[in-house]
């Protein structure tokens, strides 16, 4: 315990280095800009910035990626409130009441509530990051080769099952990722597999190229296929930014409730900020003393949604850092960033690299303060940037994709790989396959393969070793849960919709 406190304190000292502070400020600004541009996602932003973090200290690099992540999740609320177009799906619920407040001339109030709720949601999520990560990492210390095999399978089943409309398509996407991860040298035999004599493929498909292609390059193609429309002008707001003590007191319980919801949703792999925002909004409505304001401009609705989606950020980092199971596409890209820095998610992050990890945690806390300051003072400016045309974004993102993938090894062949993954990402988007599952298969593939083949090697090819420990059985149970979770999620969604319709109908009947 004392060690953890000392590490946390040292982490803050490192994170407060001027270079780190500058990095988190810039990253938060970039993230907010990406977030408030409808059509661009947080995953795209993080993937695009991955190559920039190569030359940085690992902790600074991760702080930059987390800054973009948090900034983008909050940034989505600016366009949701001012132009009724959520910048990211995570702000879809914010648009309901946020835009109504804007129409009433209370845009600044709505933005302040979104910013303050996002700040507290993100900040409180850091508590669980500090408390639960070391505990889960201790459990991961007991993992050996068979457990790592099951763990990779669990990660794949849960994300493939939950985040696709069709579970089979999700699983097929995951297995496609696994298949692509076999490209390169065989880890046991040392023979090249499916490399077609391209030396660049000997070390396997570069994860960064794949990430940039799947999340950023595919976005270029998605933007290019749609008619370029002029974005609507954001409302010019004249009311003052700020909240009274009474309003703060009114919002506090909703923020705390949404923090808990967002955190749990974040920790659960597969569920993400887009689900959390609606859950936070619904709970705020259920517990509110002013239910009649919901849908007509409720500050509680904005707070409920925004606190929940930002609380997801800290929660989703817990399984990513401790077990190597990213909960959603953004954390999958973040994990890619970690691997690029030569670090493997797992217990080592809390022992050998504890200094780096706790600096990152401290940076994550400080990012929330950056987000609050930048969000409150820069909302007017960001609203204008949010009008940037797709016609400018298409070539700009493409050039950044090319430079980013070239910068990895100063190699044009990797640009071609990025382009191919861009095409794959676009086709996956069109045919409803799951890009997050493909990435996860690509990342978890080598871990699972090594786990499986080492286990079999140790036991003379006898697969009974894969079922030999209670931890293996626990992970098998989790895999089954992963496969069944779409049914649970569907049931939860249906129940939430039923609650909504009954609460909506009740006042109508009374009237």
């Amino acid at each position, binding site marked *: 315990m004392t060690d953890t406190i000392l590490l946390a304190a040292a982490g803050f000292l490192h994170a407060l280095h001027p270079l780190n502070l500058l990095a988190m400020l810039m990253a938060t600004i970039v993230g907010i800009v990406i977030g408030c541009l409808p059509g661009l996602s947080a995953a795209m932003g993080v993937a695009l910035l991955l*190559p*920039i973090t*190569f*030359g940085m200290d690992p902790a600074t690099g991760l702080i930059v990626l987390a800054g973009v992540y948090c900034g983008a999740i909050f940034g989505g609320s600016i366009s949701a409130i001012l132009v009724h177009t959520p910048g990211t799906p995570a702000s879809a619920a914010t648009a309901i009441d946020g835009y109504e407040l804007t129409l009433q001339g209370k845009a600044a109030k709505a933005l302040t509530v979104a910013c303050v709720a996002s700040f507290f949601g993100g900040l409180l999520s850091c508590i669980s990051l500090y408390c639960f990560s070391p505990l889960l990492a201790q459990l991961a210390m007991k993992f050996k080769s068979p457990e790592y095999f099951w763990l990779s399978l669990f990660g794949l089943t849960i994300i493939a099952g939950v985040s696709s409309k*069709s579970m*089979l*398509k999700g*699983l*097929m996407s995951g*297995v*496609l990722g*696994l*298949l692509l991860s*076999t490209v390169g040298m*065989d880890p*046991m*035999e040392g*023979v090249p*597999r*499916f490399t077609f004599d391209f030396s660049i493929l000997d070390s396997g498909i570069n994860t960064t190229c794949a990430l940039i292609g799947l999340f950023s390059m595919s976005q*270029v*193609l998605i933007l*290019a*296929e*749609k*008619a*370029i429309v002029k974005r609507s002008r954001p409302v010019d707001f004249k009311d003052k930014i700020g909240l009274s003590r009474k309003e703060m007191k009114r919002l506090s319980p909703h923020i705390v409730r949404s923090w808990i919801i967002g955190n749990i949703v974040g920790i659960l792999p597969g569920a993400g900020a887009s689900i959390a925002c609606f859950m936070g909004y619904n709970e705020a409505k259920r517990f509110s003393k002013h239910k009649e304001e919901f849908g007509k401009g409720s500050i509680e609705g904005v707070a409920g949604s925004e606190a929940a989606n930002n609380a997801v950020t800290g929660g989703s980092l817990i399984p990513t850092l401790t077990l190597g199971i990213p909960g959603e596409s953004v954390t999958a890209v973040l994990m890619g960033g970690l691997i690029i820095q030569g670090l493997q998610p797992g217990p080592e992050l809390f022992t050998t690299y504890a200094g780096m990890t706790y600096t990152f945690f401290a940076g994550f806390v400080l990012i929330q303060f950056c987000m609050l300051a930048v969000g409150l003072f820069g909302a007017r400016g960001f609203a204008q940037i949010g009008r940037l*045309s797709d*016609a*400018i974004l*298409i*070539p*700009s993102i*493409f*050039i*950044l994709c*090319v*430079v980013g993938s*070239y*910068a990895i090894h*100063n190699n*044009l062949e990797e*640009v*071609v790989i990025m*382009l191919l993954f861009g095409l794959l990402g676009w086709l996956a988007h*069109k*045919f*409803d*396959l799951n890009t997050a599952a493909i990435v996860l298969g690509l990342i978890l593939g080598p871990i699972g*393969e090594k786990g*499986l*083949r080492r286990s079999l090697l140790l036991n003379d090819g006898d697969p009974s070793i894969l079922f030999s420990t209670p931890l293996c059985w626990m992970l098998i149970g989790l895999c089954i849960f992963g496969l069944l979770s779409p049914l649970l999620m569907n049931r939860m969604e249906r129940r939430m919709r039923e609650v909504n319709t009954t609460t909506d109908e009740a006042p109508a009947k009374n009237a």
Partner: protein
Amino acid sequence: MKQSDVCVVLFFYVLCLVFYVLIGDLPEEAQTYPMTIVGCLALLNTFFAFQHVKRFLTEGLLDDFPAIFSGFQTKQFFGAVLLCLGFVVLLPLAGFYVASLVFLVSCLLFLHVPKLHLLLTILVLAGLIYVVFTLFLKVPLPMGILFS
């Protein structure tokens, strides 16, 4: 059953077949793991196909391509893709900055961006890439055969 799902099934079967053939070239010890993955993919694909054959018998074949590609701007999409590919081809020949300038001007004009915005985009992007990649990361961007 949707036509797009038929394409998905065919794509995965072709992919499995290609990898199955390629696995044959590997030494025997290195074949087991990729073969297991290909087997899993083929099995999942068969389940998926079977699920949709059942739907085909009740609903028939639905043409969902108009919905998938609704609002698809053919000229704009293929024009932008061609310009992107042209940029990648031009990159090793003319170098990064010249190729970028040609690409940005042609792409922004093709997408009807006003001239002032075009100029600003080029300046901002060139400045950003120069500061981040050349000054900060010290990435040797391609200078091009024509200029080296």
